């Protein structure tokens, strides 16, 4: 069975949403904000550029270049461009050939990848299937101790019979193997160079096969990358890419409006009018390939009571949160599966707001004013603290004794590890694989990172769907799991937001729903006069 078909069929719905010209005008008119921005260029000139350099400002700095030692989104933006994966997930949400030109499943567990010929590492060494084998095995090599050692636990063994062929044997049927290879851990690193230079030197001076080469890095300031002239996918459209770290929102936006940078990441919805109102800049967004949810510790009373959890969900006015706090840049979820993922049920209506019914269920559930705590971070997900406070207000309105506590990231990470959250906390479950298995089941399964609630039927279905290659069966299983989910709410889903970027109008670029920053030739072009 040709492998690509599998995901292609499932991911028919394009997730990319571009802000239309009409929306832009509406935004600008609503505020009357046009032309107040500093450094606004005249529209005609602003549409094109002579620049050969792309400057990108992101909200945090890079920490490591060795792709097997970080899973943070700031690092991923770089590592997916310095390196290639065997399989590549494009902004259209589909899987495309990367360093592998094609792949096939033989029987249930044997995958054969044809490796792209003639590819060279940035230092001129040739890339072969042996590199791919070595690189994947490196992820779980205890002597290396990577941070992605659990990504490929389904793999039994890998063979590279000749320089152009890679054979991967999985322990059980794994329909999602190509999707796994497309995400973190799957970046292919050079065997010869890493063995010679050592892991530290490789981290300091990374060498990949990707469309850009490493030039220099000044911490917390700027990272300079240059185009790889021999890239197999074609030389990218600029000579250099500079990544700057501008953690505060206001300066990040100001630098875009002043024309100092070409692209900014993490554009908050509240600031979009300024970018749209400016004649030379625009907004591009991608519907996040996941959800923002309040995860629930279902072991702590009264959160072990389904009626109370239903009331929590019913008391949240998600429309108001989306419309006011997010200025419309998001959608109200209908369950645990993100729109755009496999088995998203388009016929299911969005989660309902009904404060009266919420009061009723609290009464029926015997809720007696026990304290319910939201543990929020500040900026772990966009708007997390404001949403916490807004939801706290909504819950209080129906008589829930809600409290907000602010946590640091590292405390959150530790509580996540110890499973010691007091009540609810923000989580941004995403399916790195475009499938409920990689999202709901990865997190909520027994022993998973958010294992706070068990339901025999839910568990049975989740396990069966994981190892099934029968999509009809899987669809039915996820439908039933959604039903159970909506009775027990192991998560209280709040919003599926857009992740927005600010760009100069001359930059033609499409964001990727899973936070990759794709600069390859097919996705990035500067409009030149």
């Amino acid at each position, binding site marked *: 069975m040709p492998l690509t078909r599998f995901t292609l069929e499932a991911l028919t719905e394009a997730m990319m949403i571009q802000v239309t010209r009409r929306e832009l005008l509406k935004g600008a008119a609503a505020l009357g904000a046009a032309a107040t921005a500093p450094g606004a260029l005249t529209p005609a000139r602003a549409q094109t550029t002579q620049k050969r350099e792309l400057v990108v400002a992101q909200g945090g700095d890079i920490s490591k270049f*060795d792709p097997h030692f970080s899973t943070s989104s700031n690092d991923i933006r770089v590592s997916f461009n310095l390196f290639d994966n065997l399989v590549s997930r494009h902004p259209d949400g589909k899987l495309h050939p990367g360093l592998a030109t094609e792949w096939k499943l033989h029987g249930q567990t044997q995958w054969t990848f044809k490796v792209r010929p003639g590819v060279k590492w940035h230092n001129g060494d040739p890339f072969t299937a042996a590199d791919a084998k070595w690189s994947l095995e490196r992820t779980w090599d205890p002597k290396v101790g990577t*941070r992605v050692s*659990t990504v490929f636990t389904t793999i039994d063994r890998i063979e590279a019979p000749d320089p152009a062929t890679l054979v991967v044997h999985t322990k059980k049927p794994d329909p999602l193997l190509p999707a796994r290879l497309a995400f973190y851990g799957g970046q292919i690193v050079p065997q010869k160079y890493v063995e010679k230079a050592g892991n530290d030197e490789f981290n300091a001076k990374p060498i990949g096969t990707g469309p850009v080469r490493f030039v220099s890095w000044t911490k*917390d300031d700027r990272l300079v990358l240059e185009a790889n002239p021999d890239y197999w996918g074609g030389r990218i459209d600029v000579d250099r890419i500079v990544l*700057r770290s501008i953690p505060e929102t206001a300066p990040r936006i*100001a*630098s875009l409006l002043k024309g100092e940078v070409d692209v900014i990441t993490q554009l908050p919805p509240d600031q979009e009018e300024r970018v749209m109102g400016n004649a030379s800049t625009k907004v591009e967004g991608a519907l996040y390939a996941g959800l923002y949810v309040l995860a629930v510790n279902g072991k702590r009373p009264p959160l072990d009571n389904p009626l109370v959890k239903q009331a929590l969900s019913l008391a949240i006015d998600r429309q108001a949160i989306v419309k006011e706090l997010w200025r419309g840049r998001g959608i109200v979820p209908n369950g645990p599966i993100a729109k755009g993922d496999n088995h998203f049920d388009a016929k299911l209506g969005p989660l309902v707001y009904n404060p009266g019914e919420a009061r009723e269920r609290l009464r029926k559930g015997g809720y007696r004013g026990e304290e319910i705590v939201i543990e929020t971070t500040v900026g772990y997900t966009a708007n997390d603290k404001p949403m916490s406070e807004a939801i706290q207000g909504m819950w209080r309105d129906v008589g829930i004794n809600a409290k907000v506590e602010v946590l640091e990231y590292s405390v959150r990470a*530790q509580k996540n*590890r110890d499973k010691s959250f007091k009540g609810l906390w923000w989580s941004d479950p995403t399916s790195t694989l475009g499938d409920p298995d990689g999202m709901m089941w990865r997190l909520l399964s027994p022993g998973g*990172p958010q294992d706070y609630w068990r339901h025999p039927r839910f568990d049975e279905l989740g396990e069966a769907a994981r190892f099934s290659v029968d999509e009809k069966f899987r669809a039915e299983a996820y439908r039933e799991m959604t039903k159970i989910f909506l009775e027990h709410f192991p998560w209280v889903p709040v919003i599926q937001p857009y992740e927005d970027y600010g760009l100069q109008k001359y930059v033609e670029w499409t964001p990727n729903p899973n936070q990759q920053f794709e600069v390859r030739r097919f996705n990035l072009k500067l409009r030149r006069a």
Partner: protein
Amino acid sequence: MRGVFRFLAPRLLRALIAVWLVSTVVFVVMRLSGDPVPLLLPPDAPRSEIFRVRRELGLDRPLPAQYGVFLANALRGDFGRSIHFREPAFAVVRGYLGATVELGLTAFLLAAIVAVPVGLLSAVKRNSPIDHVAMGMALVGQSAPTFFLGILGILLLALKADLFPTGGRGDWTHLALPALTLGAFAMASIARVTRSAVLEVLRADYIRTARAKGVAEWLVVVKHTLKNAALPIVTITGLQFGTLLGGAVVTETVFAWPGIGRLAIQSIYNRDYPVVQCAVFLSAIVFIMINFAIDLLYGVLDPRARR
């Protein structure tokens, strides 16, 4: 010289003990604050992974053993490897040092260059409008919260007037606002001290004598007062330089200035123990050295202080 040594020796000992205390406190507080490992791994990493990485970083050993290793290495100038960056901690801190020194020196020079003449002028033109305005501003500079001065600067001078960038490091325009913010307190203090020191001297008899003899006023001021008021001015100036480095923490955060202060805060949040330890250690050493230098200056310039 013997006198100077006897004056200095106990101070040196106290300074060394203080540095040791500071390092110990930062070691203990950081270890109590939590585990860096969950931040390094994907959220679904199993427990065995966490234990493996803890072992790799030496965090599985008992605290006293870790402390022993830390002290022994610190004495040799080795602060261990950054958990976040996978590089020697000292190299990481060194990379941020330039930005902080640039900001601190600029703020300090700005403060000194503006404040000393203003203080002088205020004293000479005592109770004039110039004096009132200058001292009023000094008052604000001395009492206003640093971070809010920075915010006001960003709001008025960067966002509304569009004169400066709102943050980050680059050319002199990037430097102006943070340096002014950081230097405001020092500037105010130095101006006030200069003014009173000069006033003090102006009241002295020999100045009156000089005036009576008909020597031009400005000459009197410059010659006598600066000579006699130099010590307190130098003292306050040096002290202000010492505190500037600490003040950089807030200023760097407000202006996203890539210096040691911001690195230290980020490293606390990342639980990057070695970097925090190294940054605090260096900062304490600098502060103590400056105080020491002032003591020395006093000891040499003013023999009475040696007693």
